């Protein structure tokens, strides 16, 4: 009996060992499939211009360095890694107009008088490379959108989760309802609205519509509901008002949810392409994805430069992802299971 049990256990162990080996094999193969294109991107971005046309494909091309010869008089072949593709790509696009130049003059007629804003004039900065501007634009827009959306969403979420006011549940249901409105539906009217406000081709056109989100409100509300009310009661006894509770109790306790929303919003905005394509026309106001697209338009077959530029676009995303991976994954689970 005991021997039979032992034998069956050993059999089982062997089986699991086999299973483990098989799992590792499949995982490695799949991992390679996912990484290969990205590795090819890196490889292409470091090649000399002509090497991309070589067949069979070379991962790291070697080149003959003519002055050096080996002891036997043969030419020395060295790895031919072209780091200079990156500065080349970075400096390939130039800006004709200064970056961040402001020329604002606004007259709003109010009956017999008029509200005059400006003229505000600021010469802007002369940047050598357009990519610098793209990067800065992307950072400005993504940071503004993220801060704005997390702030307004958390305020509204607190109201929906904890405060009592007439029409609260109806309004919340309205919020939920718009989660299913495809963004193409609102795209055209929002474009018209921005045009009426003379905001097309400004940062505001990128920031304002993205600053308010039903999704963020919904996610944070669900999280706030899980915070025990006893903590708030305690704060209330200590003399905290609603704002005090929001700032000193709710927000500090919601750090994981806020971090999740922040990572989510930031990455989404950083990668966003369609909306900037619609509202931005000035080269100096392009965000990175738009800049990369414009770069493709001008250097359509310079694959080494295109891949270098693409990697420069990906790099910040990869860093944010590796830092905030935990929160990102949690965001998906939260939105998925409760949406």
């Amino acid at each position, binding site marked *: 009996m005991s021997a039979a049990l032992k034998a069956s256990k050993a059999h089982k162990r062997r089986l699991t060992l086999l299973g483990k080996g098989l799992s590792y094999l499949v995982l490695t193969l799949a991992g390679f499939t996912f990484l290969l294109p990205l590795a090819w991107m890196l490889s292409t971005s470091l090649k000399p211009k002509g090497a991309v046309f070589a067949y069979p494909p070379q991962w790291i091309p070697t080149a003959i360095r003519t002055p050096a010869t080996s002891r036997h008089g043969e030419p020395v072949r060295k790895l031919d890694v072209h780091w200079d593709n990156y500065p080349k790509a970075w400096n390939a696009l130039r800006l004709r107009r200064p970056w961040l130049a402001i020329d604002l003059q606004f007259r709003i007629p109010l009956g017999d008088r008029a509200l005059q804003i400006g003229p505000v004039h600021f010469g802007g900065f002369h940047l050598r490379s357009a990519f610098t501007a793209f990067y800065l634009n992307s950072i400005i827009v993504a940071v503004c959108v993220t801060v704005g959306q997390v702030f307004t969403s958390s305020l509204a979420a607190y109201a929906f989760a904890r405060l009592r006011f007439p029409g609260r549940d109806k309004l919340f249901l309205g919020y939920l309802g718009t989660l299913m409105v495809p963004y193409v539906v609102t795209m055209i009217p929002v474009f018209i609205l921005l045009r009426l406000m003379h905001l097309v081709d400004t940062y505001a056109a990128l920031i304002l519509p993205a600053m*308010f989100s039903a999704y963020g409100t919904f996610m944070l509300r669900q999280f706030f509901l899980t915070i025990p009310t006893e903590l708030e009661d305690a704060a209330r006894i200590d003399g905290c008002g609603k*704002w005090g509770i929001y700032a000193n109790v709710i927000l500090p306790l919601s750090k994981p949810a806020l971090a999740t929303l922040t990572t989510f919003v930031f990455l989404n905005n950083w990668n966003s392409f369609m909306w900037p394509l619609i509202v931005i026309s000035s080269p100096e106001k392009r965000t990175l994805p738009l800049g990369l697209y414009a770069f493709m338009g001008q250097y359509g077959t310079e694959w080494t430069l295109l891949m270098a530029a693409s990697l420069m676009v990906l790099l910040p995303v990869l860093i944010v992802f590796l830092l905030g991976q935990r929160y990102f994954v949690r965001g998906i689970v939260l939105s998925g299971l409760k949406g």
Partner: protein
Amino acid sequence: MPDAHTPTAAPGSTCPHCRRPVAHGVRECRFCGADLELRPRAGAPHGLRARVRDLRDAYAFITPNALGFLAFTLLPVLAALVLSFTDWDAVRPLTSWREVRALWVGGSHYADILGFHRDESGALKPNDERFWQYAYNTAFLMLGIPIGMVLSLLAALLLNQKLRGVVLFRTVFFLPSICAAVAVAMLWRWLYNPEFGLINDVLRALHLVTPGSGGLLNAPLEAVGLKQPGEPLKWLTHVSLAKPALILMGLWAAIGGQNCILYLAGLQGIPQEFYEAAEIDGAGWWHKLRYITWPMLAPTTFFILVMSIIYGFQSGFVGIHMLTRGGPAGATTNLLYYIYTEAFESFKMGRAAALSMILFVIVFTLTLLNWKFGRKGAEYA
């Protein structure tokens, strides 16, 4: 100050909103989310001033978001509906009702898009053949969804094992899905390059498909017209290859992403005892997968399927715009891209708005189906 509110839910009561039974003492209905709390208890210190202050605070919290919500979501939806009945060209002024009325065309956009007419021979022809072609394209491009779901599930099953270094694999699998779509599209443009792209190079190195003679698959591919003799595979410019090419790119980016993580979360929610009980009954891995894992994941699967379809109607823009621009011959234009070109390249804003409303109705219907049937699935789990 003690809490002036008491939970309504007395033992054995039902939700006033959806009439489903609710547990004793809860504050919120778990089915419809309705608020179950009563008004303040009689005698609670809640005077008029306190109430006004409460209201003021509540509106202060809600206003920033609600204003933006109103301006950039709710009103635009209504505006899109109005716009879809006009013939606005993005140039003429459109700020007053009179101007709207001047451009009013009624439901003719809808008739033009969805309607049919008889041609000279009496055969029924769609008014807008492109719409139906692009609807077909949209459906075709969604073929990637079931394939992707199966692969995502497989990936999740692999990643759910207690193996050393599995976190590293999870990161690697997830990596493509967070890459900027523009950069991904650029990369695949390069991979799909007919002369020098890696994909054709690999096919050539494996002697599967070669530009000249010698490829094992050359003859069958040429027989069905996917390849011309003496030419490489033209992934992005061949009418029948462009859609699969886009699907493949989407699969690469999506398999390890969101769906895989949802499946992982689903897998981790299955109680381990189920498997232990099945093992005692002598179940093998297939039986465990078939009779425990798969049914337990049914709600997740349903959720992913519906969300993917809803998302499928609204995605793919970057890939299409950067790889094929909707071509060749409209073979990769989906409805989203159609709306984009109508609105922002042809400036037929009214028509584009009508198209977007049609898309809205489709997505809305699917969402309702999800809510109706998805809940059943969730209860089943």
